Structure formats: structure tokens, C-alpha cells
């Protein structure tokens, strides 16, 4: 092994520590204190065997009067040791918690800055495990580094110093073990790395299988897939189990080899020390002190193996965390500017390419201010992508979007989205009350406004029928709403801020046509001058709109005469 390689491996183990320093800004002094306290703690703890050795010598020499001062010294050492132990333990936990706190904050901050596109490429389960499990893995490593690794290094240093005071050769025995221990550690780490990666992968697989199976229970049952699903799950748990066993075999050998090496050196000390003491007719205290020091060193060193595992997990975690922290998928924040006075929308020469497919080739569309416009077209033709361009949830490959004659990229993102309300197809309700979900964190919305929005969205009757009304809890631990109720909640949420442009992306599909038309007319009646853009496949909705665009072959054209739609099922079906 070359020197370079060797050192890079050692620094590799410490890489998570360097990473974590970034999130301990202003608190780095704690690290220095911890290093000092670890030194004090181990120095005082390891000094006890030496004092005991001296006592043994005194006892051998029948000098009993020397014992009391020695005992006082031990109690003094106890005081020093206790205080520094407290500092080491508390300080390491304190700083690792501060680290996790700061990192989580930063992660949430980065996530909210990301483009919507980022979330299409990463599954939510995966992002969740990055922000929880991976943070925890790195925190765990930081804590153990500060509370165990640094003290262990100190123990090795002080053991060497003390042993060399006792006897140069005792120190030499110990010195031989250090490179061997480091070498074993590196091999152990290298061998188990692959398995830890597999364990993470299998764990993710297990989670995804569960998620899929539970959410798809109806499909699983009605197609009698129970047995094949169970078999697949058991395959995953089998592989998971096997990876753990591989690691256990490695651990069983390498991790136990470390304390054994120490014992080997201790045997050398007993033989050498015993022999020389007998020959030199010297006292036995030094030997007892040396063996005691070896004894005290064994336990922390056997923990080294576990630290290496933690480091492995932490390094994998850091890699995954960094992918979230990277800013290459951040939304661009436009500087100053106001929302235009007019709310007409124009899409000019829009081109959208997704993957290799050109979804939209050259689309032009003009939506007049105060208009109620419907966009329709075949499944997968790009309707949602088009409306997502307006509040910049997606960016076109080419072309521009204008509101009131101003390019949307020149409007600050928050101003733009404050004025353009879009109700996406996928509706997300947060855990909280119904009212909280309608207000959705936006400031200065009165209870009256909430009620009004609920009325417009035709969800007020339902809410009133609930025992707790607007205070009813929904979400993870609350009431479950039906598809139609969720859609109407989402409309209420979008309309409560009286936006100047409202986009409804096929959000009334679970609401019956009659209610749907009622909602539309309430919106127009109650929000003066609002421009409404609707994505819909419903004839009744198209008929209600001032204008209907149909997306065809990557372009938009106005559907002049609805009746002319040569489509089965639109006109009289019989």
C-alpha cells in the first residue's frame, strides 16, 4: 500500500467529520473544548493504574503510610475525570444535535428552493430517507467521533506516553500494535463497504415494495396477486438478511481481531516484564500498571470497528445529502418587479421537449383578460405542461410566456405565484384543520374569506355538516376526504386569495358536472375580472367556457364550433 493511499483512507474515515464542521458554524470552539476534555479525561483515567502501581510497590515495601496520599490523588483524579467525562459526553451530544438541527434546516431550505422537475426525478420516499435516516447516520457518526473516536485516539497517545515512562520496552510492545490495528481497520472497512451499500439498497427496496403493495391493495386482491407479492417481498427480506450475515462474518473476524492484538501485546509485556522483574529483583508495581493500562485500552479499541461502520453509513449518507444540497436544480429568483396591471396571458412559440420526445412543437395561445378559457386535448398531449408554464412550475424548452405583456421571467417568482393560483392535478392536504388547509400559510386571510371561498368551491355544506366544522382535523391523523371533496378543498384554497389568474388543471373530474358548473359561475361572479384557465375533457365545461383550445400535434388551435366535434359521445349519444 502506498503512503498516499494509506492516508487518503484515514482521511476518508474522517470525511464525515469535515462535512459536519460546516453545520457547526459558531460552535466550533466546542470541538476544541472536547479535544481538551478528552485528553484530560483519558490522562486522568489512565493515570490511575500508575498510582495503583505505586501503591503496590509501597505495599510490597511495607510502606503503608504512603497509601493515604495516593488514595487522595486517586480521588482528585476522579474529580478531574468526572468533570471531563461530563464535558465529553454532553458536549458531543450537544454539538451533534446542533449539527442535525442546522443540517435539517438547510435541507428543508434547499428542498423548498428546488424546481418542480427535481421532485419528478426523485421519489418522495427516497427524499424522505435522505432528510431523516441519512441525517441521523451522519449525526450518529459525529457524536461517536467526538465521544469515542477522539477519546480512543487520546487513550492510544496517553497509553504510549505512560508506558514509556514505566518502561521503554512496554511502550514498544504497544507501539507495534498501533499500525496493525489501523491496517485491520482499513481492511475491515473496505470489505464491508459493499454490503452496507447493498443493505441500504435493499432497505429502500423493502420500503418501496411495501408502499406499492399497500397502496395497490385493491389491484393486488382483485387480480389475486397476493402470493406473488408475498414471494417478492420475501425475496427482498432474504437478500437483506443475507447482507447482514455477510457483515456479521466480517465483524466476527476483524472486529475481534483488534482486542486480540492488544491481548497479544499484553502477553508480551507479562512475559518480558515478569522475566526482567525476576532477573532484576525489581518491584512488580510497574508491571501491574502496564497490564492495567493494556486492559483499559482494549474496550475502546474494540469499539473502533463499530466506528468504522458508522463512518461508512455516514459517508453514504453524506453523498445522498449532498445531492439534495446541490443548487443546480434551484429555481432562479428574479429580482425586483411588480405583477402587471393586466391579467391577459400569452404563450408565444412554445416548444417543450421531455426526454427525447417533443411534446409541444410550436404553440401560440392568447387568453384575454377576464376570460374563461378551456384547454383540452388527448391524454398525454401536454395540457398540464402548458398551464404549468404560467406560474413557472415548468420551463419551456423554447418560447416565452407573457402576462399583461410582461415576460413571466421578469416577475419575481413569489409575486408571480401570489397572483397566479394553480390547482395541480395531484392535490396535497397537510395535516391540520380544514381552515388551516384553505389558508395554507398565507398571511392576512380572515375567517370570513375562508367561508366565502368554501362557498364558492361548494364545499361549505360538507364542512358545516362536520361536528367541528372548519376546525375539523384532516390529513395523516385526521379525517380522510373523498376525491371530490379534496378537489373542492383545493379550489377553495386557490380562490381564497382572490388571485388575478386562476388555473384549474382538471381538478373537477371527481365532482359531478352540475356542481362543477356551479363552482365555475360562482368563481366568475365573486372574483371580479379574474382570468380562468381550465384544463378539462368535459363537454359541459367546454361549453361553459368563452373559448376552448384544443392541443393537437404539439400546437394549439381554437375549437371554433363545439358541436362540430366529430367525437362519439359528445353530442346526442343515441
Amino acid at each position, binding site marked *: 500500500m502506498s503512503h498516499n493511499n494509506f492516508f487518503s483512507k484515514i482521511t476518508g474515515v474522517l470525511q464525515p467529520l469535515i462535512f459536519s464542521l460546516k453545520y457547526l458554524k459558531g460552535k466550533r470552539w466546542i470541538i476544541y473544548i472536547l479535544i481538551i476534555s478528552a485528553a484530560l479525561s483519558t490522562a486522568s483515567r489512565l493515570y490511575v493504574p500508575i498510582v495503583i502501581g505505586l501503591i503496590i510497590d509501597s505495599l510490597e515495601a511495607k510502606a*503503608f503510610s504512603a497509601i493515604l496520599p495516593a488514595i487522595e490523588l*486517586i480521588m482528585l483524579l476522579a474529580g478531574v475525570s*468526572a468533570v471531563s467525562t461530563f464535558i465529553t459526553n*454532553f458536549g458531543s451530544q450537544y454539538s451533534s444535535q446542533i449539527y442535525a438541527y442546522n443540517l435539517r434546516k438547510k435541507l428543508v431550505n434547499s428542498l*423548498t428552493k428546488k424546481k418542480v422537475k427535481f421532485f419528478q426525478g426523485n421519489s418522495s420516499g427516497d427524499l424522505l430517507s435522505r432528510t431523516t435516516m441519512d441525517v441521523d447516520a451522519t449525526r450518529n457518526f459525529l457524536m461517536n467521533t467526538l465521544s469515542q473516536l477522539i477519546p480512543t485516539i487520546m487513550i492510544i497517545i496517553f497509553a504510549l506516553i505512560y508506558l514509556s515512562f514505566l518502561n521503554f520496552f512496554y511502550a514498544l510492545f504497544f507501539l507495534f500494535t498501533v499500525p496493525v490495528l489501523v491496517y485491520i481497520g482499513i481492511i475491515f472497512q473496505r470489505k464491508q463497504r459493499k454490503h452496507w451499500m447493498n443493505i441500504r439498497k435493499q432497505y429502500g427496496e423493502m420500503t418501496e415494495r411495501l408502499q406499492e403493495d399497500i397502496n395497490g391493495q385493491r*389491484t393486488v386482491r382483485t387480480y389475486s396477486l397476493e402470493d406473488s407479492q408475498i414471494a417478492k417481498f420475501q425475496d427482498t427480506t432474504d437478500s437483506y438478511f443475507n447482507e447482514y450475515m455477510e457483515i*456479521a462474518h466480517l465483524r466476527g473476524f476483524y472486529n475481534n481481531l483488534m482486542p486480540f492484538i492488544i491481548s497479544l501485546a499484553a502477553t508480551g509485556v507479562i512475559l518480558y516484564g515478569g522475566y526482567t522483574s525476576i532477573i532484576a529483583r525489581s518491584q512488580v508495581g510497574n508491571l501491574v500498571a502496564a497490564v492495567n493500562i493494556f486492559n483499559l485500552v482494549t474496550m475502546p479499541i474494540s469499539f473502533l470497528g463499530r466506528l468504522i461502520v458508522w463512518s461508512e453509513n455516514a459517508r453514504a449518507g453524506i453523498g445522498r445529502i449532498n445531492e439534495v444540497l446541490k443548487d443546480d436544480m434551484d429555481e432562479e429568483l428574479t429580482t425586483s418587479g411588480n405583477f402587471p396591471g393586466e391579467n391577459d396571458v400569452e404563450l408565444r412559440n412554445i416548444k417543450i421537449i421531455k426526454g427525447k420526445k417533443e411534446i409541444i412543437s410550436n404553440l401560440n395561445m392568447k387568453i384575454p383578460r377576464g376570460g374563461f378559457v378551456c384547454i383540452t*386535448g388527448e391524454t398525454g398531449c401536454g395540457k398540464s405542461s402548458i398551464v404549468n408554464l404560467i406560474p413557472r*412550475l415548468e420551463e419551456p424548452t423554447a418560447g416565452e410566456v407573457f402576462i399583461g405583456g410582461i415576460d413571466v421571467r421578469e416577475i419575481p417568482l413569489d409575486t408571480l405565484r401570489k397572483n397566479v393560483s394553480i390547482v395541480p392535478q395531484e392535490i396535497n392536504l397537510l395535516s391540520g384543520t380544514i381552515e388551516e388547509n384553505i389558508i395554507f400559510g398565507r398571511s392576512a386571510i380572515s375567517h370570513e374569506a375562508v367561508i366565502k371561498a368554501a362557498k364558492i368551491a361548494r364545499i361549505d355544506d360538507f364542512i358545516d355538516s362536520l361536528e367541528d366544522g372548519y376546525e375539523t382535523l384532516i390529513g395523516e391523523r385526521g379525517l380522510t376526504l373523498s376525491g371530490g371533496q379534496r378537489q373542492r378543498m383545493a379550489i377553495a384554497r386557490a380562490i381564497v386569495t382572490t388571485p388575478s389568474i386562476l388555473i384549474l388543471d382538471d381538478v373537477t373530474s371527481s365532482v359531478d358536472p352540475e356542481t362543477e358548473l356551479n363552482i365555475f359561475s360562482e368563481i366568475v361572479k365573486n372574483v371580479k375580472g379574474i382570468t380562468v384557465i381550465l384544463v378539462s375533457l368535459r363537454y359541459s365545461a367546454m361549453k361553459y367556457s368563452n373559448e376552448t383550445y384544443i392541443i393537437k400535434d404539439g400546437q394549439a388551435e381554437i375549437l371554433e364550433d363545439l358541436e362540430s366535434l366529430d367525437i362519439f359521445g359528445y353530442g346526442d349519444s343515441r
Partner: protein
Amino acid sequence: MTESYENAEERVIRTLKGRKALFRMVSDIAKNRRGLSILVISVITTAVAGTFIPLTIGEAVNSVNNRSITGVILFASIFLGLAMVQFASNRFRAISSTEVSQKTVKDMRDNAFKSIHKVPVSFFSIVKSGFLISRITNDGETIGDFLTFQIPQVVSGFTTVIMSIAIMLYLDFNLTLYALIVLPFLSLFTISLQGKVRANYLKTRKTIAAITGNLAENIGSVRSIKAFNVERYVEERFDGLNEENLRANIKASRLSSFYGAVVRVIEFLGIVIVIYAGALQLQSSLISIGILVAFIFYVQEFFDPVIQLSQLYNAYQSSIVGAGRIYGIIDSEKEEVPEGSRDKEDFTTDLSLKDVDFTYGMGDTLKEINMEIKRGDKIGIVGHTGAGKTTLSNLILKLYLPKDGEIDLDLVNTKLIMTKSYRDIIVPVLQEPFLFRGSIYENVRIAKKSATDEEIREKAKEFGLSRIFSRLPDGMETDVGELGRNLSEGQKQAIAILRALIREPDIIIMDEPTSNIDPFSERDIFMSLGKFAKNRTLILITHRFSMISLVDKIAVVDAGRIVENGTFEQLMEKKGLFYNMYNILYGKTDSDPL
């Protein structure tokens, strides 16, 4: 009236509490006799070998004092021998502890997974999937770590303490008593802190769970968060929880660090007492130097197990809670298979619903439903949202059982037909199509394992579905993504339809099969459905009238009852509910408001 989520969950998942969960887990572990015996033997061997080490060192010291070189060599060899025994037995311990614990966890997970396939479907309307998943994955991890590391440590700790005391007693009775003086103090101190430790621990668990829940929600809701421009709000909500968690953890670690410091003092006190008492005994020549040395080592040694035992509580608590939860899933009530149930090969004459009543728990969802569906019939079921149409299809599919009345297939109560065989006869296209990870081919193949890509492609073409997939980057090879996110709603539904078609069932039941498919593709699907349904029985649930021409008879459902029945013409003539609904959709403005 409304029951809290916790209570509802507790009703279906009977979580085992405290000792019951522990005993159950112990008996599960005990099933792996071989692994467990190896584990116990190796742990005890390691501990026993460890307790002989101080004695050996003491004897080595005595040999030096007696100027016996052979004694030094002998005891050094014994010392090395003990280390070798520990090396070997520890190896077995590492392997068998992983085997025993991971096997236990694997079985728990597998059994929980099996169990969720046998519970009634209503289970999933109560238990949220997030909780179910985290119980099986997270809680399983906690248990695995606990069993792998903590349990062997406890066994080894106990063995060490008992063996050490035994050897000390054998060496010198009086000095043993002195050495043990500190133990009661240590125990009292440990026990006195337990209440606080427990409270602190629970608080940290609660706050971290809140963080995870909040993150899950935020990540899942990112589109709405962006669309409504509420990033700041979300961040502030999170910050509050993050801070609470920080505070709880700092409080907990302050206490545990204080405990560690005090234990350090007690440990030194123990050493001092032994030295002082030993010195006095040595003065009166009651013991040798070697024995005193051995005692000093013993006193240092039984502090580690005691500290470890005190730290065990947190891990014990969370794994017992976790185990109780997983057992709760395993034990949840299964769908019963009534006696006398048998397989049914095919469908020959009719499917009939007789006075069927059903409720999900509050109020009536369906009331006095009577229907007779003859082989070859094409029945439409229409009605407003919430009228009970989907519930009706759930009952016909046997996903739920009627509260009253019965559903008969060829005069056999479906309750008494083995579910698996029943589902070969009847196949649904559900309202919310569900996709598994994988390609479109793979997703269709779940309905018929033997179907080749070629066959699936042909089927898609035959039924006019190819066009819908042709837009996708890789056609039918396209990976549908997590929960089918790479596809549009319409594409998902097309897959669901293809699945049903390829299975070629006797009865096909469709619940709004084209609600998200554009009218353009709908026509293609529609034409081919007509062809496919020709020799089959079709039950079509819809509020889209475009599909009505596929059926011969229509039943109109309103508020859980069938209110109208007949052919399209009959219903239009009747000028009832059906007539009104039709007019609203097709824009006849003279419709009467309902």
C-alpha cells in the same frame, strides 16, 4: 361521533403492550434453537473467559513476587489462551447474534406482510399506509439492532458480574464485601434517575416523529407548496418542530452525561475502598499482593456492564413498542373463510343481489339493493357522486361483504365461493388505477403471467389503446415510475383496461373506466369494449353518458338506493333523475334543478 385516528387504528391493529410483546418476541427468538444455543454458549464463554483474566494477572504477579519464571510463563500462556478463547467465542457471538436477531426480524416482517393480504379491505381505509410502512421497516430496524447488540450485552454483563463476584468470594470473602459496597449506591442512583430518563426519552421520540411526519408531508406536497408560494410558511412550521427536538435532546443528554460523570466518581470510590481495605488485609498478611491486584481489576470490570444495563432502557423501550406494533399487524383480524366454501369454475346463469344493505360504519351507504344480472347482460349503473356506485362495485367484487342480504353467483352465495376462484371469473377496472414499478408490459402482465410482449401489443392495438402509449418516449417499454407518476391519468387508466381485457374474464366490472381519458381515445376504447363485451357480462359504472350505448339496461342509484331501472329510452321518457342528469351534461338549459 367521530372517533380519533388513534382509537380507530387501535380497533383494527391490536398492538401488544409491554411484557406481552416481550414474551412473544422471546418465544419467537426461541424458535431458532440452534442459533440461540450457539449465541448463549458463546456469550457466556466470552464472559467467563473474561472474568478469569484478572485472576490470571494476579497469579502472574504473585509468580513474579515468588521469583518463579515458570509461573510467569504459565500464567502468561493462560492469559493468551483466554484471549484466544474470547476471540473464537466472540466470533460465534457476532455471527449468531446477527443470525438470531435478523432472522427474527425477517420473520416478523414477512408475517406482517402476509397478514396485510388477509385482512378485510376495510383495514386499509382505517390504517394509514405511512404508519404501516414505518412499523414494518423502521420498527423492524430498531428491533434488529436491539437484539443484535443489546441483548447479548445484557447476558454477558450479568454473567460477568455473577462470575466476578463468585471468583472474588472464592479469593477472599471480606475483601469481596468491601468491593461490593459501592454496588447498592450505584443501583440506587441509577434507579432514582430512571423516571426522568424515561420522560426525556419519550419526549425525544415524540419530537423526532413529528419531524419525520412533517417532512413526509412537505416532500409529498411540494407541488402545492410551490404553486401557492408558501415555502416560508412550510419552513417556519418545520423550524418549530426542529427546535423542539433540539431542546428535548439537549435536555436528555444533559441528564445522561451527568449520570456518566457520577458513575465515574463511584467507580473510583470503589477502587479506593478496595485498595484501602486490601492494604489493611495485606498488612495483617491475610491476602497476597496478587489477590489485591486481581480485586482492583474486578472492581473496574463490573462497572461497564452496570452502565450498559442502565443505558439499555431506551433501546429496550423503543424495540418493545416496535415489536408490539408489528405483532399488532400480524394479529389483526383476518377475513374469515366460512366453512363449506368452495371453488367456482365458471359463470353459467346469473349474478343476483338480494336485499343488499351495506354501511362503512356511519349511516346507510346502500339500502335494499336488488339486481339480477344474467350471463351476457350489459348493465349500466349511473348516479351522482356519493350515491353509492363505487360501494356497489366493491360489494360485487367481494372486497366488502354485505351487511344484510346476499349476492349470489349461479345461486351460490358469493360468501361461500373461494375468493381466489371468484376473482378469476370477475375482473374490475377500478376508478383509481394502480400501477406497480416497471414497464407498461410488466404492469399488464400482472393480470396474466404468461402474456408475451407481443400478445400485449396486439391486445392494445385490437382495443385501440396503442395510440395512447405511442406518445411515450419508450412506448410500452416505458418505466411507469413510482405509483405511475411518469404517466398521465389517462395512460394509467388505459393500462388498467388492458389488464382486465387480457385476463378475459366472464364478468367485467368497470368503475368510471374512462373518466380521465380524453374523448378522442375514449372512442377507440369504447368501440373495442363493445366488441370485447359481446360474449361477456359487463357491469359499467359511470356518470359519463357517452358510454351508455354500451349497455342494454341502466340502474340509477341515488342516496344508496336504486331509484330507476330500465333501458335508455324508458328512462328518458320517464323524465326522472336520469333525464335530468343527462340534460345537465349535454347542455339542455331547460333542465329542472334537482
